[in-house]
Structure formats: structure tokens, C-alpha cells
């Protein structure tokens, strides 16, 4: 069973919220996009991204013969490849809109999506919005940012400190809507009881450290509470950009006595 909570906030500096998220738990799909582009274009791009990704996956769920856009990657499940296809479709949608409509020229968006299908979790992304997995109390970043700074760091051209202080944080190397085709990073995890997935925009990760995110996720059992607290703390830290967090918890099916014990265990921990 999946439980989720999501929160999106303009932050304390920006006037518009160009982040957008979508949750379609009936097909186990969660999507987040951070738009860019002047005027209202960023909002248009992120909305197009989220809508197109959901629509493509929904249509495929009803009709498995829906063609895939882009190559299918071997060794990855149907659902994972479908997610990759959905992001490529979204890329085209934004690209065409930007070219049809001069007022939206140059707009683009990031996309990160997770899909729960059977015992697998598919993760797909392009841009600098991230997916994290909290498993056994430890946080792992599942995605690598497609940004100038992250790439420089990976190639050893910047130190961690230089990367943290660089003014080029906002320069992306990959995003949806810029070119007719986009390269999408895909990966899979085996789903495990108690896993907590976090999808977030850079407005969250620029304000809070991984250690702080870990503490908040470990401390709030309810995904809605966790998403709310992440956004709240990111605002307290400055709220320099739009902040969006989706927290998805893979909950064990209630197992009678077991859940009573885990409740008691929680109480003992609080009392001790």
C-alpha cells in the first residue's frame, strides 16, 4: 500500500510558483517538474510536463500497445521504459509549444517521476529535480543532477566547497523542451516495506542539507506531515526558490499483532 503527501510553495522570494506536481496513486505514479522561462512560461512548461507524463502512463495502463517514444532499454522493466517514454513525450509537448508560441520561446522544465509497479519502483528524470530514497533510516539520492555544477563536481573539476558556493547552481545541462529529443536517466529499485521516496525541486535541496532532510523524514511517520515540514523548514532557511516535496511511503500491509507491537515499541521509545 502506498501513502503519500505533497506540498508545493512559492517560497519567500519568488512571485510565481513554477513548480508543479501530480499524483496518480491508482497507477502508482508521482511526478514533479520545475519550470523555467520568463513571464508565465515556466508555469506553462511544468504543467505541460506533468500533464503529458501522467497522460502517457494512464493511456498505456489502459492500452499496453501504445507506442513507446525513444528506444526501449534492455534490462529495464516495461514500466520503467514507459516512464522514459512519457518524459520524452512531455519533452516534445513543451518543445512544440515553445516553437509555436513566440511568447513561450525558450521555456523548459525539469522532470522527475517515480512509478510503483509490482515489486519494482521505476525512477526517471532529466534536470536537477531529485528523487531520494530513505531506507533503514538512511537517505540515498537516486538521481544525479543534470547541472553544470553537479557535472563539474563529478568530473573532478570543482571541489565540493566550490560546488556548494558556485553562482552557477542554476545552469542546467539537460531539461525538457529545449531540443526535440531529451536523454532521460532511468533506474529501478526493488520495493521494500517501509521505503520512503522523496521527490523534490531544487528549492528544497538548496535550503536543507541531506542530514536535515533525513532527520525530518525519519521523524515524521505521516507523509503529509513530512512534506509539510520539509517545505516549512526550507522556507525558514530562506525560501529562495519555489519549494515542492512529494513524500511517498511504501507501507507494509497491516499484520495483526505485529502492528500492535510496533505501536508499543514506538511508545517505549518515546517514554525511555
Amino acid at each position, binding site marked *: 500500500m502506498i501513502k503519500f503527501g505533497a506540498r508545493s510553495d512559492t517560497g519567500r522570494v519568488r512571485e510565481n510558483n513554477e513548480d508543479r506536481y501530480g499524483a496518480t496513486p491508482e497507477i502508482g505514479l508521482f511526478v514533479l517538474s520545475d519550470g523555467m522561462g520568463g513571464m508565465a512560461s*515556466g508555469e506553462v512548461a511544468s504543467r505541460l510536463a506533468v500533464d503529458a507524463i501522467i497522460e502517457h502512463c494512464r493511456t498505456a495502463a489502459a492500452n499496453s500497445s501504445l507506442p513507446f517514444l525513444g528506444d526501449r532499454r534492455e534490462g529495464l522493466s516495461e514500466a520503467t521504459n514507459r516512464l522514459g517514454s512519457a518524459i520524452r513525450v512531455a519533452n516534445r509537448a513543451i518543445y512544440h509549444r515553445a516553437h509555436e508560441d513566440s511568447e513561450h520561446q525558450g521555456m523548459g522544465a525539469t522532470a522527475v517521476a517515480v512509478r510503483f509497479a509490482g515489486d519494482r519502483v521505476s525512477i526517471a528524470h532529466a534536470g536537477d529535480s531529485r528523487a531520494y530514497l530513505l531506507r533503514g533510516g538512511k537517505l540515498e539520492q537516486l538521481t544525479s543532477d543534470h547541472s553544470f555544477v553537479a*557535472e563539474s563536481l563529478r*568530473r573532478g573539476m570543482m571541489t565540493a566547497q566550490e560546488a556548494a558556493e558556485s*553562482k552557477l547552481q*542554476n*545552469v542546467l*545541462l539537460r531539461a525538457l523542451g529545449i531540443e526535440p529529443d531529451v536523454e532521460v536517466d532511468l533506474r529501478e529499485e526493488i520495493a521494500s516495506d517501509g521505503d520512503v521516496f522523496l521527490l523534490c525541486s531544487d528549492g528544497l535541496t538548496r535550503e*536543507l542539507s541531506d542530514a*536535515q532532510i533525513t532527520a525530518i523524514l525519519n521523524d515524521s511517520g505521516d507523509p503529509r506531515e513530512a512534506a509539510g515540514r520539509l517545505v516549512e523548514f526550507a522556507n525558514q532557511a530562506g525560501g529562495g526558490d519555489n519549494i515542492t516535496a512529494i513524500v511517498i511511503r511504501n507501507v507494509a500491509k497491516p499484520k495483526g499483532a505485529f502492528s500492535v507491537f510496533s505501536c508499543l515499541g514506538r511508545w517505549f521509545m518515546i517514554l525511555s
Partner: protein
Amino acid sequence: MRKLVLKFEDAVLKELLVGQKEVSIGRSPDNAIAIDNPAISHYHARVFQENDRLMLEDFGSLNGTFVNGQRVKMVALKPGDSIAVGKHTILVMESNEVEGSPVWRADRPAAPKINETVMLDTKERREFLQQVAAVGESAQVAPARLKVATLVVRKGRTDQREYTLSDKLTVVGKSAMATVKLKGWFAPKAAAQITRRDDNCYYIGAADHVPSVNGQPIGQPRKLFSGDIIEVSGTELEFLYRD
């Protein structure tokens, strides 16, 4: 006040306010503007105030110091001047900041809109690796001598005796989120919070409790200075900038 802005190509590497103290420029790390590049002499030049005038003096460097394209030995600077040393540029600018605000700041946005997310276009992306490689080789500026904000526990029960403030938000309290973890039954979840703002200074604000700084309860968030004593919920913390 006037300030010096160190740039490599379009990237702003550092900004430095010029006060009474002279600003030395060179390859040695003990220079105020240290540029680790073979084209620059160990002690290359200096900028200093003389009777309200801002002066630049070249220390007889091998490759020279240029102001607006002219090689100079000693020259008066004015806002708008561009100093070239090796491949780096130092711009002279007016600044409305007052002396006393922290002198070193890392990578401030150059233009107001710079925080907008942008995408490198295809051509730029192709050139990206070469550029990064070039910067990586020749613009290894010695790390800014950034002072490290530190909290030292003077009284009270906490999980550590000393904390380095590395995050933008530091919570003091019992909460899981807290960096400065207060112990004891009655400690509040979030007693106070300290945030680093865009000016790279730290500000303390109230959370569940209203902290005092140097004995004064704070109303609005208050900027912290070295030596400030923070008191909150029976705990005393000294705020310090360490070298």
C-alpha cells in the same frame, strides 16, 4: 565604499570591499586576492587608499598589471576601471555596503536575474567541458578565507560542546531536525533558529521560545556578531567567527 570584483571570464569569483586595509594581489595564498596561476607573481600588486583616492601599485611583476588595457606601475583607480592580471579581471566598483559587513563573500549573483534557472544551449554545452577544463586548470583561486561560524556551548546540556554552522538553517532544540540538540525533559523542540542569509551573515530568530542575545530578548531576527552570547531555555551559547 568601493569594492573589487574578481572575475574569470564571465564568472564572478570574489567580491572584496576596500577599507583602510590594503588589498594585496598575488599567487601566494596569504594575499587578500590570491590567484593560483603561474602568470601571476607571488606578490603581484596592491590596492590601497591614499587621501580618499584608491591607488593601484604593481610590485614589478613579471607579466604586469593592466588598467583599462594600459600597463601600469602606479595609478589612481576610479569606479568602472578594469584591472587585468594574467587571465583574471578585477573590476573597481562603487558599493553601498558599509564597512563592517563581512568582506569576503563567495560567488554573489552578478545580476539580479541570475537566480532564474537557465539552460545552456547546444553550442554552449559542447564548449562546456573545455571551458570547465580551462577554468579548472588556470583559475584555481585559493579558497576564500571564509570565517567559520561556530557556536560554543558555555552552559547547559547539549549533545556537543561546539557546533560549526554549515547549513543555511540551524535549529536549537530537542527536535530531530535540530543541529544543536538540547537535552533534558523540559527542553523545547525548537527553542531558536539561526539562518544564514544571502549576505552570508547569520541571524537568530525566535521559534517556540524567544532567545536573548547579550541579555536582551530579541524581537525581530537579529544579526549575530562574533562574541554574542545567546541564551535560550537555560542554555548559553557563544557565537564566534573562527578563522
